[in-house]
């Protein structure tokens, strides 16, 4: 009963469930590809910081929010980062689907969920890095959070859920797009959404017809939750709305991505 005599490894017999077995490998791959895609990395890390500096120093003086503008805008900038990070996911998924590697993965029996989940997890890793960076710079330019450890944890949880939702949405965009250029159009849509929300200016300052949309879109409850939790102000029902929005998007994209992946590879 000794197994020392086995000279040739028998790889095929020792397989776990393919989805579980391939997920860490696919994730490691996406994280590595992210690290090597310098342009995208710089965009995802530097652009949100530039935007934050722009809003705080250029526009901030003219915007009355009741607090110092840096306090008001930082939670929103963190959220904007998520958008940039996710846009990259759309492009990477699209590249995988249109290149030769998808055939390799499929003939290796890598499930579509593992491929997409790898991209989404890489997006979360990317966003974690950019969030830390943004908070670091924000502290330097005068952002002062007042949050209990519990509130920090809650804020982190909501942000994680938001990044997860928006990255899954990006993965769906990547499955829909037939070229990387089209997939990067997702950036535009994502970049637009925070503007008609309470990310940069209070909703009351908007024209009446826009206020309804601004209040009832997913970005507003997320940014209001982050703001309230980090600054120690009341959050009301916003966290629940945020969780409902993100949960809904996640559920929708999970179903949609399965359908789209099968259609793309039929």
């Amino acid at each position: 009963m000794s197994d020392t005599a086995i000279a040739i490894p028998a790889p095929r017999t020792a397989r776990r469930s393919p989805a579980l077995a391939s997920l860490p490998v696919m994730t490691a791959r996406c994280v590595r590809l992210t690290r090597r895609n310098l342009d995208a990395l710089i965009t995802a890390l530097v652009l949100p910081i530039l935007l934050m500096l722009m809003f705080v120093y250029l526009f901030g003086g003219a915007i009355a929010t009741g607090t110092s503008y840096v306090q008001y805008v930082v939670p929103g900038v963190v959220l904007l980062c998520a958008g940039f990070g996710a846009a990259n996911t759309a492009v990477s998924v699209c590249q995988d689907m249109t290149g030769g590697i998808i055939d390799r993965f499929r003939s290796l029996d890598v499930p579509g969920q593992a491929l997409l989940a790898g991209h989404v997890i890489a997006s979360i890793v990317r966003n974690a890095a950019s969030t830390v960076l943004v908070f670091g710079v924000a502290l330097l330019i005068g952002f002062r959070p007042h949050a209990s450890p519990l509130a920090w944890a809650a804020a982190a949880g909501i942000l994680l859920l938001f990044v997860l939702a928006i990255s899954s949405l990006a993965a769906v965009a990547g499955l829909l797009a037939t070229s990387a250029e089209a997939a990067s159009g997702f950036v535009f849509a994502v970049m637009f959404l925070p503007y008609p929300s309470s990310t940069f200016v209070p909703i009351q300052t908007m024209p009446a017809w826009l206020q309804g949309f601004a209040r009832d879109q997913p970005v507003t409850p997320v940014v209001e939750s982050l703001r309230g939790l980090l600054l120690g102000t009341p959050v009301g029902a916003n966290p629940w709305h945020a969780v409902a929005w993100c949960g809904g998007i996640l559920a929708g994209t999970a179903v949609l991505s399965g359908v789209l992946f099968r259609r793309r590879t039929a």
Partner: protein
Amino acid sequence: MADELAVEAVGLRKSYGGVHALAGVDLRVPAGSRCAVLGPNGAGKTTTVRILATLTRPDAGHARVAGCDIARDQHRLRRRISLTGQFTGLDAQQTGAENLRMVARLSGLARGQARRRTAELLELFGLEQAAGRRVGTYSGGMRRRVDLAAALVAEPSVIFLDEPATGLDLPSRLALWQVITELGGSGVTTVLTTQYLEEADRLADQIVVIDAGQVVAEGSPAELKQQVAGQRLELTLTSRAAFDDVARAAAWVGVLEADPGRLLVSVATDGDAAHVRHLLDALDPQRVAVERFAVRGATLDDVFLALTGHLPEQAGTAGPGIQHGSNDQKEAIGV
């Protein structure tokens, strides 16, 4: 016996939006042999291979590959085969070694095993020097080699190669052919597609000619050549007028090739001296039109011409040129 066949396909059909990519393809490939699926662009080669590798579902027909049914036993089948497509299945931003390790891990090898297998393959393919560089910096030939190495990671019993030499320069092509030829010795079954007759002749012991989604002929390279004519008589003519006369006269006996540019007309013969003499007299009764003649073994071009009524694309221009994505690949990905 059924279990001696690595591939057995019956009546495979597939259409894309009304276009029949495959109109009933049968294929039988004995285990351990090398089969070339030969045909022009858009003949259905890629679709055939993709169906056999379970990447595309056929509209009709069934097939067994490596003992597994393509429809019912997909997951087990995928563990026994590998497919190297026309487009490199590698990450340009990962190094050659990283790509191979990734494939090894996805094949179910543990970390240490994956590292050992990668080292083995890099050595086998002479890629140790390039192992640490990103695949994006490789030449086309090197990329193909890594791609092929990736296909061998898990020691598959059937290997599908879709137009392996397309886009490679001559030295890279020769090196790749060498590798593919060596695969045969290890008991692996190879099914490759090609639009180059020379490649099929060099690499395969069985050739299946397909055209417009149907098998038009099959057999060993030698058998196929015999099917047409044993030999060809190649006549080089003295002038354009002589060319026209001889080409017209030769229409009666069957022209294999007529090239006004080179003033060359080829006709079929069995190579027998009496037959050659008879042909020369019949085609050039005045004995002024033919400058030189040569008797050659029939080429696969002749086979192709005889079977399909047209030459495969680019057959005239010395072997694999630069070419991206055949029609059937686009059909397979699109919609």
